[in-house]
Every structure is written in structure tokens, then in C-alpha cells.
């Protein structure tokens, strides 16, 4: 089958559930390869296994048989820390339901994923991994001294106190600026920049959906998984979102989108159909 150099490889993946005492395959021997820059859409009726498929890609569900490989990592074999890191740094996930944090503003909701692991994100560094103008990053030595598997509540930075504390504060301030700038830019691209200080309860369904997309894009994931990303959107908003996703794909991000929306399908490179758990190319 496929080599492991692809970004996403589903190899003969089956997920079985028991319903009323009888086993059935929600996903039945599915195979799929997604490379960088590919925009894949999956269509199919409700209950045909689309969500189960993407939940296996994100590691929320383990396959009954077969393997899911993301960025050369067998998802089922990852520890909780490794899987979380994969979700945070390699994957972006636009969920079907509304999962914004009600206690945070729109801007903070978008920024939060970028604060979960201590090492710098691509948009805060230049090509050599040096400190960028907006957000300075720690050097490799400094980063390596911290346990990257630990949350920032435990190990925020591997920085010495005392003489380096002023530098550390400057770096943190620089990183904060970079995060805010990145989040505001995404909100702007999605046409909701004016909602940055609003709370989720003040938003419409479509606005929340767009905030979710901004959040999923915040860490510049290699693979964006979108479960009905245009479900609540009007035509104009759908166009804004799909144009953005297309641009991301053109810049090298792989996108795996589950949708019922025919308008959204037109933006994809390849369309697959999911029928009774069987995945087939349209």
C-alpha cells in the first residue's frame, strides 16, 4: 500500500461498533492517502461513518483494525502526550458542534491552542528558527531544557531566573504580540475581526463556526480536518471560508473536509463518498 512519506495514510481501516447486540462496521476497510496541499472532501449521508473516520484520524477513536498514520506517526500507538501534541501542532480540527470556550473572548479562544506547548510556533520564527521581529523564540538549548511533554502550567519555559528574567519577559511579551497578531489576522480573513472581544454566547451559529475555523488554523497545522465547516453559513460566509481554506491548501496545508454542502465541494481537489462505511472516490 502507501509509503509512510504521505501526510495522512489510512490503511485498510475498519471501526466496528455494537448496535443492539449486533456488530456493524461504521468504517469498513477504508483506504485514503492525503499529501501536503491536497484538499479532500468526503460526502455521504448522515450515519455513514464520516465522523467516525475523522475521529480516527484525530485519535479520538482507535480503529478496530488497520492503521491511521499522520505525519509518519501511527496514531493508535501514540501516548496521550504524543497524541495531544499531534492534535495541537500537526492537526487542526473544526468540529461539527460548537466547542468554543464560553469563558473566553473570541480572540482568546483563537489564541489558546498556541499556548499549550512551550516551544515556538512557525509564525513566531523566521526560516532559521531565530527570533522573529514580532515574537521572539527560545533557542534550541533553552527549549530542550524544558520537558515539552509537560503543560505550560508546569514547565512554561526552561529559562533561568535572575539575570535572564528580563530577557524572558521580553520574549514572552514578543510571543504574546505574535499570537495576538496572528489571531487577529485570521479573524480578519474570516470577516469577524470586529468580534474579537465578544464572548461566544454573543455570536450567531455562523460566527461561531468561523471562530472555530480560525482556532483550528491558529497553529498552522499540516492537516486541517473540518467536519461540516460551512454547515451554519450563508452563501457569502461560505465563500469567505472556502476561499480561505483553498488558500491554505495552495500554501501546502492538507485539508480533509466532511460536508453536505455542494457549494463547498467545488473548492476541493478530490471528492470521496462514504456509503455504509465504505469510502470510495467519486
Amino acid at each position: 500500500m502507501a509509503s509512510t512519506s504521505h501526510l495522512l495514510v489510512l490503511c485498510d481501516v475498519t471501526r466496528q461498533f455494537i448496535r443492539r447486540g449486533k456488530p456493524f462496521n461504521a468504517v469498513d476497510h477504508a483506504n485514503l492517502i492525503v499529501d501536503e496541499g491536497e484538499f479532500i472532501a468526503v460526502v455521504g449521508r448522515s450515519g455513514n461513518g464520516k465522523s467516525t473516520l475523522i475521529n480516527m484520524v484525530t485519535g479520538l477513536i482507535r480503529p478496530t483494525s488497520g492503521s491511521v498514520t499522520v505525519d509518519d506517526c501511527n496514531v493508535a500507538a501514540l501516548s496521550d502526550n504524543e497524541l495531544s501534541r499531534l492534535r495541537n501542532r500537526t492537526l487542526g480540527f473544526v468540529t461539527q458542534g460548537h466547542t468554543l470556550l464560553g469563558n473566553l473572548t473570541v480572540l482568546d479562544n483563537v489564541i489558546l491552542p498556541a499556548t499549550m506547548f512551550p516551544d515556538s510556533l512557525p509564525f513566531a520564527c523566521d526560516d532559521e528558527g531565530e527570533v522573529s521581529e514580532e515574537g521572539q523564540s527560545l533557542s534550541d538549548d533553552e527549549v530542550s531544557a524544558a520537558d515539552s511533554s509537560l503543560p505550560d502550567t508546569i514547565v512554561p519555559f526552561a529559562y533561568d531566573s535572575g539575570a535572564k528574567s528580563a530577557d524572558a519577559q521580553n520574549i514572552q511579551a514578543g510571543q504574546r504580540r505574535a499570537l495576538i497578531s496572528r489571531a487577529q489576522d485570521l479573524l480578519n480573513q474570516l470577516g469577524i475581526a470586529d468580534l474579537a472581544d465578544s464572548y461566544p454566547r454573543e455570536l450567531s451559529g455562523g460566527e461561531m463556526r468561523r471562530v472555530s475555523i480560525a482556532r483550528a488554523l491558529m497553529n498552522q497545522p499540516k492537516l486541517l480536518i473540518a467536519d461540516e465547516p460551512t454547515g451554519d453559513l450563508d452563501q457569502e460566509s461560505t465563500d469567505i471560508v472556502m476561499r480561505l481554506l483553498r488558500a491554505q491548501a495552495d500554501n501546502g496545508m492538507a485539508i480533509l473536509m466532511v460536508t453536505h454542502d455542494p457549494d463547498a465541494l467545488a473548492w476541493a481537489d478530490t471528492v470521496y463518498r462514504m456509503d455504509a462505511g465504505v469510502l470510495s472516490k467519486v
Partner: protein
Amino acid sequence: MHSAITLRGLPYENLKRKPLRTAALLTIVTILSLTFFGGTMLTMNLNTGMTSTEQRLGADLMVVPQNTAQQAEALLTNGSPSTFYFTTDIADTIKSADGIEQASEQTYISSLAAACCDEKLQIIGFDPASDFVIEPWIASQFDGTLQDGQMIAGANVDVSVDGTIELYGRDWPVVAQLANTGTSLDNSVFINTATVPQMVAVSSKMTKNSAFAKNADKAVSTVLIKVKQGYDAQTVADNIKHLDSRFPDLGYVYPGGITATTKNSLNALISYLAVFVSVIWAMGVIVLLAVFASSVNERKREFASLRIMGATRGMLNAIIVKESIMIGASGGVVGVGLASLMIFPFSSLIGTQLQLPYLQAGPIAIIGCAVVTLVCSTAIGIAGSMLTMWRLSKPEAYLTLREGD
């Protein structure tokens, strides 16, 4: 400039944005810490008072006049001042009994309301030469010799700026003031035996107690006895009773027995306190668990969201524990503060109302108790959140969320 959220700041935001839930949890933890700290401090102060009483009651046996044993006990614990006496010939006979190591006489005179004090004073005459009960205690705080006409004042006695106390229309010089004991001795003044007749003479003029005045130079309220090694107080009391046919009717007070009686009252009170605190804590823990359990469902969406963003289970647990610690520590501090406002300024009033030895524990004990309270209130918060963490350890919150959608 917008201050960007961090994972570290998320627990604070969660608490801030849920003011009702936070206030409810804080109230519960505050009540728990208030009852725990308040109850423990009361218990500790009563125990300290008891220890102080035991230390001050250095005698193994007190022999007092007929029907005055209860007054004597009250006088030594936290009761009202009294006047009772027999005469020195009886005291001398008592002192001749077998098994006595040391004996000393004391005379008790209850004052009228004095200018110095809110309540009546207990005037205690003692013989510095033979005394083995008060003198060691006084000696720790006054290294001179108590001269005739001079006084040593208990801790609660207000001595005027010129170092005197006005009693029965006369100013008495005070040479020292003793530390707090939590007993009625704090409301007492001490004079030597030679000063007793002077005091009786002036008091009798005011109180018209001519009988007492007549016996002023030979009035003795109690004989305090320290028994020889190998004897117990009961045996010595029996020996005394055999000395004279009238002696079985005398009052025999066993400081160990007093403390036993007082201890019984004290233990009963402490038991009530313990039950009260336990019930409050049991109810509080149940309410806390219920609040946390209900918040698991309420917060399922939040946890699902964090998981799909890449939060590890450790991060979620850290958020929950941090919230619990913030609630527990804040509630603990408020509870300790409120309990302190109720207990420390009203120490004397509490002691008076309880009619038990009540002495404020030392600062180290208070700080220790406050720390234990804070640890317990924080621990109870964490214990409550364990349920949430346990629920989080079950299948992915996002999946259960999807099932519910």
C-alpha cells in the same frame, strides 16, 4: 494592548466568568474552614486553659470548710469569687496528718465590685514561705518578695497608671502582674498572709461581716497539700478525716478530681464541637461533590474543546486542580479570617460564657491551626475535583458530547 490568554491563566478566567458557581463553591469552603478553624481554636483554647489550670493547681489535695468544695472548685476553674474560711487551729491539725509532704494555707476573700474591674475580684492571701502552688508561678514573673500591704495582680485586673488598685476605699500598691491563665486566677489579686487581716478589716467595714472581722487573724480558707511519695490524695484525705470527728464533714477537693470534673465538661463540649464540625464537613463535602459532579456535565463541552485543541489529560487535570486550589485556598483564608474575627477579640467573653478554663493558645499553635485549615480546605476542594478528573479519564469528552448532540 490585549493581554493574551495562557493555559496558566485559564483556571482564573473560568472562575471569573462563572461568578455564581464560584461564589457558591467559595461559600461552602468558607463555611467549612470557618467551622474547622473556629472549632479547633475553641477546642485548643479550652485544652490550653485546662493545661494552665492543671499547672496552677499544683496541690494534690485541698481541704476546705464544710459545704464549700464546689465553691473552691469554681474558684480554681472559672467561677465566681467566694469567701469561706475555717480557723488556723483546724488548719494546723490537718497539717499534722500522715502522708503530707508540703502544706500551705490560703485565704479567699471576695471583693465588692472594684473600681479596677468589671466584676468582683477574688482576693487570695497566701504564705510565701510555705506556698508551693502560687509562689513558683509568681516567681517566674516577679523576683522580689511580696511585702505586707502589697499586691500581685492577675492578668485581667486593670491596674491604674500609678501602679495601684483601689479596693474598699484604699489604694493598694501592685508590684507585679501575672500572665494570663484562662482561669479565675486572672481576676484575682494576691496578698501575703500578713496582709489578710488588714484586708479583712477594711472589707468587713464595707460588708458589715463582723464574724469574719472577728476571725481575721486566724481565718484560713483552704489547706493545700502535696502528698508524700507513695501516698495518694485519697489516702491522705482519709488520714485527715480520722484526726477529728468533725473532719469528715470538711470539703475535700482533689485538683486531679477538679480537673477530672472540668475535663468531663470540657470533653463533652469538645465532643459537641467535633460532632458539629463533622456534620458541617460531611454536608459540605456532599454539596461540593454534587456541585463538582454536576459541573462535569456542564463542562463536558469545555473539556472536549480543550482535548481537540491538543490539551493532554494532565493539562485538564492541572486546570481542574488549579481551580480547586484557588477556591480552596481563598475559601480557607476567608474562613480563617472570619473565625479569627469571631474568636480572638471575644476571648474573655467566650471564657466567661463557657464557665470553663479558656486560654488563648500561643501564636505558633494558631498559625499551625490556620495552616492545617488551609491545607484541609484546599484538600477538600481537590477531593471534590477528583470526581471530575475521574470522569475525564473515561472515554473522550468529545465523543460523549457528540452522542448527546
